[in-house]
C-alpha cells in the first residue's frame, strides 16, 4: 500500500454544513445486488419517509427492504427490543424467507443505545436466518458510506476457507459459474491455463452485474483470475477469505471495508487508484499486475483506443471548468478523470477524506494535474454549501456537480449542474463505461448548448441572497 502523502495538494476543512443523502439509502442498491437478502432499517418515521421519497417508484416493486418503525413505546423503552425485533423478523421470514436479514441501525438506535450487536446473534440462532448488523446512518459523512458499513459487516461473514474441493468451489462462485456457463470440463481446464499462477484475489465493492463481468474480464486479459467479489449476487455465495488473500477495492468510499479485510481477515490490500475513467482503470489494472509480478499486455493500446472513442464528448468539455460540491466520495476519482479530459477543477468538495485509503488516487490526481498543466484543485473536506455557492458565484464554473437539493436553484441562476448522485447509480467503472461518465457530464452542457440562443439563463427575478 502506498503511504506517501501527496503533500502538494491543498486540503481545507469547512463547517460540515453540506447536504447529502442519509447513508441508509444504500439499501436501495444493496437489496437489488444481493438477491437473497432482506434489509430491515430500524429507525423512525423520518427514516422511512426519506426512503420512500428518495427511492421513488421502487417501493411499488415490493422491495426486499422495510422499516422497523420505532414508536413511542420503543423510544421510551417500554417495549422489549428483542421481542419486537423477533416479531418483525419472524414475519419477514414467513413472508419472504431471505438468506440473510441485514439490520441497518439508524441514528436513533444509537441514541437510544439499542444493543443490536448483542441482540442479533441470539435472534439469529432462534429464527435460523443469519442477521448482519450494520450501523449505517447519518452519524457518518456520506451516503455511500452506508455500503461501506454493510460490506465491512459482511466481510466478517465470508467463509474462512474453501469448504469443499476446488472444482466445487468454482461452482460455488457465481461469476465463475457465469464464465463457465455451459462449458465442458476440458474447456474449463483449458481456460484455467489462460490464467497466470497468482495468489487468490477478491474484489470488493457493489457494482451492477454487467460491470462485475467487465472488470473480471479486464483482469482475465492479463491472466489474473478473480476468485470472488464482496458482495456476491447471493449472500450464500460470499467469497472465501483466507489469510493472505489479496483484496482490491473498486470504490473510494470503502475504507472501513478495506480496514476490516486487512485487520480482521488478514488480507493484503492492493492500494490502487480506482477503475474510473480509462486512466484510472489502466492504473488499477497495472497496480494489480505489478503486485502479482505480471507485465501488462496491450494496456497502452486499450487505453488509447478508449480515449479515441471518447473524443467527441471530450471536445465538449476540454478547457471547461468543473466544481464539485461534494457528496458521494467519488469526487477525487471523477475530478482526476475530468482533468485528464482537459477540464480544470478549482474545487473538490468532499464530505470525508481517508487519505490513506485514497492515497494512490490522490497521488494520481496530483500527477494528472502536473501532466495536464493545470492548477491543483483545492480539496475541501466537510464543505459548507452556503460558502460554496458564494464561491461558485465568483468562480462561474462551467459545470457544478452537486446534490439534488441545489441543482434546480443553481440552474435557475444560469449555472450548469449535474447531480452527483447519478454517478453512484450509473455504470461508470472500467474501460467500457468511460463513455457513460461523459454522457452524464456533458448532458447539461449539450442541453444548454441547445438552449443558449434562447436567453433563458436567469430564471429568478432578483438574485436570492443565499
Amino acid at each position: 500500500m502506498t503511504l506517501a502523502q501527496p503533500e502538494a495538494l491543498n486540503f481545507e476543512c469547512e463547517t460540515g454544513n453540506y447536504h447529502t443523502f442519509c447513508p441508509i439509502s444504500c439499501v436501495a442498491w444493496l437489496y437489488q445486488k444481493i438477491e437473497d437478502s432482506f434489509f430491515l432499517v430500524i429507525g423512525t418515521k423520518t427514516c422511512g419517509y426519506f426512503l420512500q421519497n428518495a427511492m421513488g417508484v421502487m417501493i411499488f416493486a415490493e422491495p426486499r427492504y422495510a422499516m422497523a418503525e420505532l414508536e413511542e413505546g420503543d423510544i421510551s423503552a417500554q417495549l422489549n427490543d428483542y421481542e419486537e425485533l423477533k416479531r418483525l423478523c419472524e414475519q419477514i421470514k414467513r413472508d419472504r424467507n431471505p438468506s440473510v436479514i441485514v439490520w441497518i441501525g439508524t441514528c436513533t438506535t444509537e441514541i437510544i443505545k439499542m444493543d443490536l450487536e448483542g441482540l442479533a446473534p441470539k435472534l439469529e440462532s432462534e429464527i435460523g436466518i443469519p442477521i448482519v448488523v450494520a450501523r449505517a446512518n447519518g452519524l457518518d459523512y456520506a451516503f455511500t458510506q452506508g455500503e461501506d458499513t454493510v460490506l465491512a459487516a459482511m466481510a466478517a461473514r465470508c467463509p474462512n476457507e474453501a469448504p469443499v474441493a476446488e472444482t466445487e468451489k468454482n461452482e460455488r462462485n457465481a461469476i465463475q459459474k457465469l464464465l463457465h456457463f455451459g462449458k465442458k470440463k476440458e474447456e474449463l481446464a483449458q481456460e484455467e491455463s489462460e490464467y497466470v499462477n497468482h495468489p487468490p484475489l477478491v474484489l470488493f465493492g457493489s457494482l451492477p452485474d454487467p460491470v462485475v463481468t467487465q472488470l473480471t474480464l479486464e483482469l482475465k486479459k492479463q491472466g489474473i483470475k478473480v476468485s470472488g467479489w464482496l458482495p456476491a449476487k447471493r449472500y450464500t455465495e460470499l467469497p472465501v477469505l483466507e489469510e493472505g488473500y489479496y483484496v482490491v477495492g473498486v470504490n473510494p468510499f470503502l475504507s472501513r471495508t478495506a480496514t476490516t479485510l486487512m485487520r480482521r481477515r488478514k488480507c493484503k490490500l492492493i492500494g490502487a487508484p480506482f477503475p474510473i475513467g480509462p486512466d484510472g482503470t489502466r492504473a488499477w489494472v497495472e497496480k494489480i499486475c505489478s503486485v502479482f509480478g505480471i507485465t501488462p499486455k496491450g494496456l497502452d493500446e486499450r487505453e488509447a483506443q478508449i480515449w479515441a472513442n471518447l473524443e467527441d464528448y471530450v471536445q465538449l468539455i476540454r478547457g471547461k471548468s468543473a466544481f464539485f460540491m461534494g457528496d458521494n466520495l467519488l469526487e477525487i476519482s471523477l475530478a482526476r478523470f475530468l482533468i485528464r479530459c482537459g477540464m480544470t477543477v478549482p474545487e473538490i468538495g468532499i464530505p470525508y477524506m481517508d487519505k490513506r485509503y485514497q492515497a494512490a488516487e490522490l497521488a494520481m490526481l496530483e500527477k494528472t494535474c502536473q501532466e495536464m498543466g493545470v492548477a491543483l484543485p483545492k480539496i475541501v473536506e466537510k464543505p459548507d454549501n452556503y460558502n460554496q455557492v458564494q464561491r461558485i458565484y465568483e468562480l462561474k464554473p462551467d459545470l457544478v456537480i452537486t446534490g439534488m437539493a441545489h441543482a434546480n436553484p443553481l440552474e435557475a441562476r444560469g449555472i450548469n449542474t449535474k447531480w452527483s448522485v447519478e454517478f453512484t447509480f450509473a455504470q461508470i467503472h472500467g474501460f467500457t463505461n468511460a463513455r457513460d461518465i461523459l454522457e452524464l457530464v456533458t448532458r447539461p452542457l449539450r442541453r444548454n448548448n441547445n438552449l443558449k440562443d434562447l436567453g433563458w439563463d436567469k430564471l429568478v427575478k432578483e438574485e436570492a441572497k443565499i
Partner: protein
Amino acid sequence: MKLAYWMYAGPAHIGTLRVASSFKNVHAIMHAPLGDDYFNVMRSMLERERNFTPVTASIVDRHVLARGSQEKVVDNITRKDAEEHPDLIVLTPTCTSSILQEDLQNFVERASLEAKADVLLADVNHYRVNELQAADRTLDQIVRYYIEKARKKGELPTAKTEKPSVNIIGVSTLGFHNQHDCTELKRLMADLGIEVNAVIPEGASVHELKNLPRAWFNLVPYRELGLLTANYLEQEFGIPYVNITPMGVVETARCLRKIQQIINAQGANVDYEEYINNQTLYVSQAAWFSRSIDCQNLTGKKAVVFGDNTHAAAITKILAREMGIHVVWAGTYCKYDADWFREQVSEYCDEVIITDDHGAIGDAIARVEPSAIFGTQMERHVGKRLDIPCGVIAAPIHIQNFPIGYKPFMGYEGTNQIADLVYNSFTLGMEDHLLEIFGGHDTKEVITKGISADTDLAWTREAQAELNKIPGFVRGKVKRNTEKFARDRNFTEITVEVMYAAKESVGA
C-alpha cells in the same frame, strides 16, 4: 415497532418545514443528523422550486451525541441570521434528535439575544403527530406569536377592511395542487367582490400576520391545515370562518352561500345565487357533464375513494351526488380525524375505511373490484397491478401533482378538472376493456384475483367454456356470483344451466 413499507403522511418535522418555508423570508434550522434535510430535495425537485430552500441542518454528529450541541445550534441560528436576514428563524428537531432531550427552548432564547430575527422553537411532539397535524400546529404557533407580539406593541389593527375581505388559510408548499387551488380561490373571491386580506402561509410575510384580524372572515379550504389558526382567530377576535371545501359544484355553492351569510351578517348585502346559478349551469362544464350522456353511462359504476380527509370526502360526494357513481367504499388515512370523515361521507358510500395501512387498502380494492379508483399514488400502483384505472386525488405528493399547466381541484375550474379526471379514469379503463372484447392488441390474461383456486365446486367443461366467452373484466364477478348461487343451493357442479339460472337470480 411496526413493519412498514410505506406511509401516507410524513413525519412531523416535514409539516413544520412546509409551513416555515412557505412564508417569505423565514428560515428553518433543523437540529438533525446528516441526511435528515431531504425536505430540501423534495421541495427543490418535486415542486421544481427555483430558489434555495430556506432550511439548514445543524448537524447532530458523534460529537453532539457525546457532548451535547453546546453552541452549535445557537451558532447556526445566529449565522443564518447574519447571512440571510430572515424575519423569523424556526428551530425544529426531527424524530431522532427530539430524543436527545436537549433544552432547545433555551438555545432559542440564547440565540434570540443575538439574532435580529425572531426565533421560535416549533412546539410539536414528533412521535405523536404526523406531518399534517404538525403543519397545522406550527402555523397556529407562528400566527399566535405575531399576533401576541403586535398586541404587546399596540400594533394590532382594530378596524375591519372597508370591503368584505377574507384570509385564505392553509395554502402551503408541497401541498397537493395548492398553488393552482389558491389561484382559483383568488379568482373566485374577486368574482364575489371579496378582497383577499391575506393568504397564509404560502408567500406571506410574517409582518402581515398582525393584519389578519382585519378580514371579515377566514376561509380554510383544507381540513388538514389551518383549522387551529382559524379557531384561534375566532376565539381571539370573533372572526368567523368557513371550512366548507369548495370542491365540486355542490360544495362550492354551499361554501359561497355560507360566505354570503357570514358577510351579510356583518353588514354586507350580497346575493350570490345568480352567480352560483350562472357558474353552475353555463360557465363550469361540470353540471352539464353530469347531465350529459357520457356521465349517464357511468351511472351505477363502482368506484372506491381513498386519500386525505379533504380530498377523499370531497371526491366521494362528487362521485355519488353529482355523477351518480356508486362509491363502494371511501377511506382516509387521517386516523386522527376519523369522526369528521365518517360524518361527511357515510351517506354517500356503502362502507367507510379508516386506516393508514396501504396493504389493507390494496386488499380492499382487490376485494371489491371497482371500475375505477380515486386515490393516492400508492393506489395508482395498486390499480396498475390489478388493471384498474386510478385517478390521483390526494397526497402523498409526487412530481405529477405539481403540473406546470393550470389544474386546480377547487372552485369552478376545479370542477371541470375533476370531471375530466373522473371521465378519463373510467373511459381509459373502458378502452382497455373494449380492446379486450374486440380482440385488440392489449389482450391480457386477467388475474382472477380473490377467486380461490381450490374451490369446492366443479365447473363442467361446457360451463367453463361459456365462462371464458365472458369478457375478462366481468368474468371474475360472474364466476363468484355463480358459485355463491350454487353453494346457496347445495349444487356441487356448475353447468351452463346453473350459470344462467344464477344470472337470472342475482343479476350476475
